[in-house]
């Protein structure tokens, strides 16, 4: 019998995402991928997956699903969220889990992922990953183009998401402690590539002003409401490429930050680009939140990228066994194969 998660309620917008479809933008294919790749990695690491494995990206309100596998090991990371595991479909109350910890669910039990708090997004990873065929090298869902993920679309009630594992492994449960998902006080941007097509006064207003994330925001574009920008010589340019985090300004003068599902090319001037280190935090920012921007140099941005990648590399060090004291940490990490090298040969011969 095949192992699946059977979706009972879809949530608001639940899609399969990994780190994106890389190498096909020259064919017009958007990269897609997790809006918050830091949290995607954290969720995967919590259940022992490779960090780039596909997981469910959950926006605002999570799905409810039944486990139709012997058992599964799950974890959410990103926004705060309450996860309730019910004994069966008829049960009213269940066991509650929080974000940033792994937990085990048995066949027939129902998992209800609630509303996200603090941030918009949370990622749900399953040990072993989903058994979904990659399209152009990725399982990320590009909903507009109906490419990748689960049938090229967001999850819907009735879907049966196939799992690679029919039962959870023997590994222990973990919590993730102290992962810094703080928001930068101002999102940093590198000006350009078309900042010269805006008046200096406009750019100052853009950097000094405060913007509200508009309800029209989606995975393609974060629409902002705030001080308008004035174009110097019209708002049409001959199309050029659109990098992740590009801030384009159409005729209405309000900036639009292009996100994971952005089109590969476009014909509006781009005043600035959000730096790569701040994009995961921007990706998980909620509709209605107020944000502002600050100029950074390319060199500063690259230094901040280095720092972020070091934080990501250190995520496994922040794992704490969920049911043990910290003193047992090292032994536990060794037996669970989280420390490579000698652990493989000497301490974990019985592990798969």
């Amino acid at each position, binding site marked *: 019998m095949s192992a699946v998660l059977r979706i009972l309620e879809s949530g608001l917008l639940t899609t399969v995402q990994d780190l994106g479809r890389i190498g096909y933008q020259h064919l017009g294919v958007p990269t897609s991928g997790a809006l918050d790749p830091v949290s995607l990695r954290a969720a995967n690491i919590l259940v022992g997956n490779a960090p780039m494995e596909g997981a469910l990206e959950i926006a605002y309100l999570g799905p409810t699903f039944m486990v139709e596998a012997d058992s599964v090991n799950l974890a959410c990371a990103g926004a705060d969220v309450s996860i309730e595991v019910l004994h069966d479909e008829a049960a009213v109350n269940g066991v509650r889990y929080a974000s940033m910890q792994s937990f085990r669910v048995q066949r027939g039990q129902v998992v209800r992922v609630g509303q996200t708090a603090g941030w918009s997004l949370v990622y749900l990873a399953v040990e072993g990953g989903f058994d979904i065929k990659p399209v152009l090298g990725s399982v990320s869902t590009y909903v507009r183009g109906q490419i990748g993920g689960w049938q090229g679309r967001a999850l819907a009630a009735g879907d049966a998401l196939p799992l690679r594992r029919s039962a959870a492994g023997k590994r222990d449960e973990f919590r993730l402690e102290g992962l810094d998902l703080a928001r930068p006080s101002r999102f940093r941007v590198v000006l350009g590539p078309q900042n010269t097509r805006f008046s200096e006064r406009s750019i100052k207003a853009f950097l000094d002003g405060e913007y509200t994330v508009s309800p029209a925001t989606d995975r393609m574009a974060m629409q902002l409401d705030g001080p308008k920008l004035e174009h110097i010589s019209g708002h049409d340019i001959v*199309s050029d*490429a659109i990098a992740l985090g590009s801030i384009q300004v159409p005729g209405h003068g309000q900036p639009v930050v292009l996100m994971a599902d952005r089109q*590969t090319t476009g014909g509006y001037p781009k005043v600035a680009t959000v730096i790569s280190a701040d994009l995961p935090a921007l990706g998980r920012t909620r509709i209605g939140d107020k944000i502002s921007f600050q100029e950074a140099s390319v060199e500063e941005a690259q230094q901040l990228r280095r720092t972020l990648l070091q934080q990501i590399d250190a995520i496994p060090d922040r794992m704490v066994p969920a049911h043990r004291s910290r003193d047992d940490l090292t032994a536990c990490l060794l037996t669970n194969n989280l420390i490579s090298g000698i652990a493989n040969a000497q301490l974990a011969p019985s592990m798969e």
Partner: protein
Amino acid sequence: MTDYNVLAAGDTALIVDFGNQVDLNVSAKVLALAGRLNALKIDGVIETVPTIRSLSIYYEPLTVSAIWLERQVADILEHLEEAPATGRTCDIPVCYDPELAPDLEWVASQRDLDPAQVIELHSSRTYHVYMLGFLPGLAYLGDLPSELVLPRRTTPRSRVPAGSLGIGGKLTCIYPMATPCGWHLIGRSPISLWDASLTSGALLRAGDKVKFNPVSLSEYRRMCSDGVIAAPQAGTSH
């Protein structure tokens, strides 16, 4: 010496920009630069995206520096010869029947032409693929005969069917999937320019040549039901 600017699009992309224009000579430079740069297989270059006016280079700054990349670009452009085309030509069947061409009459009336003359003008030349963008597999083709160069619609249509043939400014294209669209629609193609089940997904590549082959409404319908596939041909037959 080629005139260009290297611009930063954040900390992980460089844009080699040749200016705000639709120009076959600029496109030749962009595509030649893309070909030469890709052939170097530089560690840390993630992907390159040629557009009508520029080449975007997406890179990992912790592996390769922007300054070093700029130097490679300068080296290549200094010694750039005529761009090698991809050498591929693709014949694409198009039905210009009024039933599938809602703007054909209007386009003709703008230029005091018969619809038949518009069809003749549009289908009698070989087009250059400037770039793919906006949608998976969408190829921007040019240049249109000057008689067919018109501004875009003031009010875009909210949805046009897959296969729609549009003209806008100096360019023409076939929409690979249903989409909002501000161009004038003068026909429809029965073939699919995008199929994610293919290894590459897209029928065309930047640098390809394209000819439109007029077909009747009944041929169009037969081709739609047969699932005709147009394959680009290597060689110099055109």
